[in-house]
């Protein structure tokens, strides 16, 4: 009875919220006159940063601090999850190996995922993609083999080192601007020729740092969750 009343109240709330938002969005101009900051950036991004991918210019130059913040959110989530999962991460990973198809495909996929991930990270300032997307693919490259061979030991050491230095590099590039007397995250090294691999100054370096950090963090997090899940599964069987 109480559950019904609560469900009814929730439904009523959601309907009200939905109606309110529909009414408000009806009244909003879309992509029209008020989008002043967006239009200003679209007009000057290439000249300011030298990045042909305007999304990257926004992400790394105009709103670079937001991106650093988002990297930090992923990091804080991984740390908090590590704290909660705690000692379970240290338990010996065990489990039955996967079937032939997954094992063969995993071995085949690994180099391709690695190359694709690296390509997307490195070309982030030129074409759609970048550190977050490429980093997720890199993480998948290391996680697919783990799915195929659950018993294989995970080396957290290398991931920790890569993750720590990649994160630090982002902040250090930002702080380098301060040393020069400018602001945090000032684009360095000149814009170069737009469209070249080595262009857009320090932006590709930032994307490389993000790609490595996101990749190692996601891979580490997934490995930890897999390891934490294992003892529970065993407990269920016994």
């Amino acid at each position: 009875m109480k559950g019904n009343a609560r469900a009814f109240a929730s439904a009523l709330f959601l309907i009200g919220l939905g109606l309110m938002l529909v009414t408000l969005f009806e009244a909003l101009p879309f992509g029209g006159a008020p989008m002043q900051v967006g239009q200003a950036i679209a007009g000057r991004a290439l000249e300011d940063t030298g990045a042909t991918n305007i999304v990257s210019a926004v992400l790394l130059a105009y709103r670079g601090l937001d991106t650093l913040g988002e990297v930090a959110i992923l990091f804080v989530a991984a740390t908090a999850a590590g704290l909660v999962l705690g000692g379970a991460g240290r338990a010996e990973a065990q489990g039955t190996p996967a079937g032939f198809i997954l094992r063969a495909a995993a071995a085949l996929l690994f180099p391709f995922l690695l190359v694709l991930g690296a390509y997307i990270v490195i070309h982030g300032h030129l074409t759609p993609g970048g550190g977050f997307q490429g980093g997720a693919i890199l993480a998948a490259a290391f996680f697919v083999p783990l799915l195929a061979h659950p018993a294989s030991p995970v080396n957290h050491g290398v991931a920790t080192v890569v993750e720590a230095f990649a994160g630090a590099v982002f902040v250090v590039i930002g702080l380098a601007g301060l040393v020069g007397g400018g602001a945090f995250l000032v684009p360095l090294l000149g814009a170069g020729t737009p469209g070249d691999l080595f262009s857009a100054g320090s932006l590709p370096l930032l994307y490389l740092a993000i790609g490595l950090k996101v990749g190692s963090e996601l891979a580490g997090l997934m490995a930890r969750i897999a390891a934490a899940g294992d003892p529970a599964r065993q407990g269920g069987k016994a």
Partner: protein
Amino acid sequence: MTLTAHHVVLPVALPLLVAFLLPLVGRLSDGLARLLAQLTTLAVAVIALLLWPAASDGGALVSAMGGFAAPIGIVFYADKLALMFVVALAVGLLLFRPRREHDSTKVQTLWLLLLAGGSGLVLSGDLFNIFVFYEITAVATYGLGASAHTGAGYGASLRYLLLSALGSAFALLGIALVYAAAGTLNLADLSQLAGERLTGPMGLTAFVLMVLGFGVKAELFPVNTWVPEVYTAAPTRVTAVLAGVVSKLAMVVILRLLVLLFQDPAALGFLLLLGAIGVAAGELAAFRSRDLHRTFAYSSIAQLGLMAVAFSIPGHAGVLAGIAVALHHLVVKPAFFVLADRWRGEIAGLTGAGRTSPLAAGLFVLLSLSIIGIPPLPGFWAKLMLFKAAIDAGGAGNLTAVAIILAATVIEAAYLFRVVGILYGTAPAGRPPLRFTLGELAPGLLLGAVLIAATVSVAPLGDGLTAMAADSADAAAYASRVLPGGN
């Protein structure tokens, strides 16, 4: 090295840098990682203090990230209010620093991220950037809330996560509405456009959504249901920092939104309503609770309600009262939680505990007198300023709020004196006495000393706060510092 306006980013960048490296240092030695993290926290406090003179000369230090001037890029705006809260956060995190414990490097990493996120929350002058820092702070809190590794801690933290995620979605929706209506996220730019584009139902909806979102951390009614549970189940040093400092940082964000974007009577009325309900509900629940942790958690809800009521009064008198209440609570509540850590469990079981540890009981009496508002303690001046601002502003809403706060004060006095009576009662024979070690009590005693020092120097403190509040309440000054060329 001389500090320039661009160094206002250091309270965010420095802890982030060290936090990223900390897991690596922790593999070598937990002790080294702890030392490094604590030195960083200290450095942030020192940097904020060094920036203080420049901020008070020019009104505020403004730095445009990446050299992209507002409103195109993100700006940091460090006025005295922001720097004061950065110092308070850093000092709070040092005072209640993690000890040698299981997983201490991870806890210490979250501690640093809380510092970075909290500093960014008060320093940033960009709406979406504030949201990013709010998320860092919130996610760090999920982890720290569960760091006692108890079932109750996991449960409380998970329920907080669900509520906070909903709140974040609301806040993001509010920010999206603001961006859609005004086309910019820079607070200074928005303050100039607000009168034209953020009025009516659109502006009010955006404000309500953002208050409900940021209000989760600011313990506002009705999104504060996580407070008693998390504050009871988390380790006491975490609770002390969350209740003492972090909740106020979210309140500072709401203050900025009010001053710069929403000087609309309906928006102010909404916050007044939430604040007044928070005060009444918090004190009533505190009166009913039978456990010191919960009592103080509910009392914290009531105190943040007081802040909301103060900020809803237009003009700098309300801002002044709100800041005064915030600073007072910032000193008193962590000290209360220091006492609650040893005096766990049923309050009734504490009979006579005051006799075995007279120093702790004396501290409890001092804190209680101040939070109730007995002159000449600082809590009295804070409440007096609030009443004066509300009565001067007039109006049925404000006067009703004053009546509610007066009634709530009576309830507050009743439950605090009830505890005092129990503490000084006669202990039943044969029960082992609860004693504090000096190390446990030290942070509380330090905060008690600060309270007494503030009582003695209330006149210069009041002058300083008045200047700070007048500046914080001045939207035109904020806009002119961030956008010097005009718009």
